[in-house]
């Protein structure tokens, strides 16, 4: 995964390589920012999105390098190509942000999300829920005589699909982590 060059000051990527700025087509991009793990850094990122009117579809954050005190923020956002380029440039100039990667344009990447589903039911519905969970390779991490909690990992669309199937079978609660993503290859 190569860093966007905006931080290093060359002009081949990011804000420079704007596709047609008047293009009003909305795209979804997955961005990863490596940031100093210091108080307020997440507020700066969220404040940037709310203050400038950008969308956040999903956001995850956790420390990834304990010795270097850096965290990785993964953001799924939508906007026109011009807005996406602005978001990257604006993220890049936040002082504690080290790097910004646009996983959607930098090459193939993997995206995963973890979700927990509480499904309540009995009889045929309960059997069907368990059968579908097996097909989706979801694990039952808690069970009572009238409920299951399934754990499922996958792309956001797989999780959406599983939630749709569980709804008529007694889905009562869902918890999702948001997307974590990495570029493929070394």
């Amino acid at each position, binding site marked *: 995964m190569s860093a966007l060059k*905006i931080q290093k000051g060359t*002009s081949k990527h990011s804000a420079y390589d*704007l596709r047609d700025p008047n293009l009003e087509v909305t795209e979804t991009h997955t961005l990863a920012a490596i940031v*100093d793990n210091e108080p*307020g850094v997440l507020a700066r990122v969220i404040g940037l999105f709310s203050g400038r009117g950008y969308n956040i579809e999903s956001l995850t954050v956790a420390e990834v390098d304990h010795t270097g005190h850096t965290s990785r923020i993964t953001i799924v956002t939508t906007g026109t190509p011009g807005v996406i380029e602005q978001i990257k440039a*604006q993220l*890049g*100039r936040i*002082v*504690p942000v080290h790097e910004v990667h646009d996983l959607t344009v930098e090459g193939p990447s993997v995206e995963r999300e973890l979700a927990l589903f509480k499904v309540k039911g009995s009889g045929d519905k309960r059997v069907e829920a368990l059968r579908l969970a097996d097909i989706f390779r979801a694990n039952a991490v808690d069970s009572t005589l009238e409920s299951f909690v399934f754990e499922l990992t996958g792309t956001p669309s797989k999780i959406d699909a599983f939630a749709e199937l569980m709804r008529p079978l007694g889905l009562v609660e869902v918890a999702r982590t948001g997307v974590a993503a990495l570029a493929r290859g070394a």
Partner: protein
Amino acid sequence: MTQAMTGAKMVVQALKDQGVDVVFGYPGGAVLPIYDEIFLQNDIRHILVRHEQAAVHAAEGYARSTGKPGVVLVTSGPGATNAVTGLTDALMDSIPIVVLTGQVPTFMVGTDAFQEADTVGITRPCTKHNWLVKETDRLAETIHQGFHVATSGRPGPVLIDIPKDVQFATGDYIAPPAAKTGHYRPQVKGDVEIITQLVEAMETAAKPVFYTGGGVINSGDAASQLLRELVEATGFPITSTLMGLGAYPASGDKWLGMLGMHGLYEANLAMHGCDLMINVGARFDDRITGRISDFSPNSRKAHIDIDPSSINKVIHVEMPILGDVAHVLEDVLRVWKARGRKVNKEGLAKWWTQIEKWRAKKCLRYTNSDKTIKPQYALERLEALTKGRDRYVTTEVGQHQMWAAQFLGFDDPNRWMTSGGLGTMGYGFPASIGVQIAHPEALVINVAGEASWLMNMQEMGTAAQYCLPVKQFILNNERLGMVRQWQELLHGGRYSHSWSESLPDFVKLAEAFGAKGILCKDPADLDDAIMEMIEYDGPVIFDCLVEKHENCFPMIPSGEAHNKMLMGEASTEDAIGSSGAVLV
């Protein structure tokens, strides 16, 4: 080398080590330990303002007129919240300032303590960066990092929030060379490949124009020198935004005057008609571009900017050059010279002929009067009588600000201090105090409107206390002139709350503070009155009663293109359409 000392002492030591000689501030409970340390030393001068907003504007005036960061010290809670307007102003105009705020002790943070506010939360969106320092051992390094961030890359305001127990506790002081300043290192050298593309475009362009901004001034004296060299060598015309005035001399023959909403006809038409636009440290602000879809439709555009988020934010450019203005201009000159100093002589000659035709319109013409003082006339006389002096000008915000930009000429950078991005009424007076502190012998004039000036009039106390001979040149039309102008153009002449009722007697007001007041209402007396103001050794309020209903022209109505300018005598009825009316 580390040295044990209290947090409060560390603050003063860190400021000394950063070369700070003056701090603008106002004491309060949460900064008393720092004020105690200030009391015990003589290296750093503290200027006591009368309101924290003024401390920040004074620091901005100091910073803009010296190129050094301005420093502010205020208390927690209301001290910090009063500083917010100044911080936002400095952020919009890229002014390096370091604001130190006191905070309630760490063990009381979050308890809604007396004079507690979430200062870093409130100021997060209006600073370039801010810090809450929770350990005394981290304090010195944080202050040094603050100076680094404020002055590197695109400059801006930073804020460091220091709880009172951190000020009292003892920790290890780290001097600047040893202090880590973090990974923040913006790129200053531009991409030579794109610089070469720009030079190629410069060699063939028939209708080029330099469009320069505050970035040239922020980049330092070298940038202004290189810009002058490049303009003289190529013979290209040059215009500038409000923020960039003085980077290229107003007396230079390539100078077109300011561009934008109240810019000069020749400057705006050159921007509209050019085939190569070279943006040097400006940001395509909406006061400049007018209607985006009609902005300079037939030009190739280059944009030199140190902030990647400024590039392609508003206007798409073919040649983006990320870097510091001085570094990039040096490379542009070097490459252009190495390739044989070529320009399109024939094209340029035709271009200048066209520009001379636009200039012949004399867009700043106005109808003078021998009965009332026209504001334009007042500024013409101020210019004539102060030119050649060691002069610094600050302004408030409104019509007077635009007239000052049109009628005063600046031949050097750092001589013109105005609130451009945020448009802060009340900026000019405290800014003039900051400028005068930095340049005690200079003639410092704040060109003001009476309404703006009243917003920070309490600073008369500061001017009087420190015997600062700041000249408050108030163009008094008893109106919020620019608001009135827009109400005339947009709201059928219904002047809702745009007049200044119950104005003070400014002469008596000056005298009440022990300053000098001058009232002038007759054009025949104006020169003598201005000379009296200049020659008086002390603060002066000059109450210049001007024509009440003068409008500021030329003007590009909101939502219009550069070539749709309203000139002085033009009919202004229905000049702004409904789509323009929603804009500001």
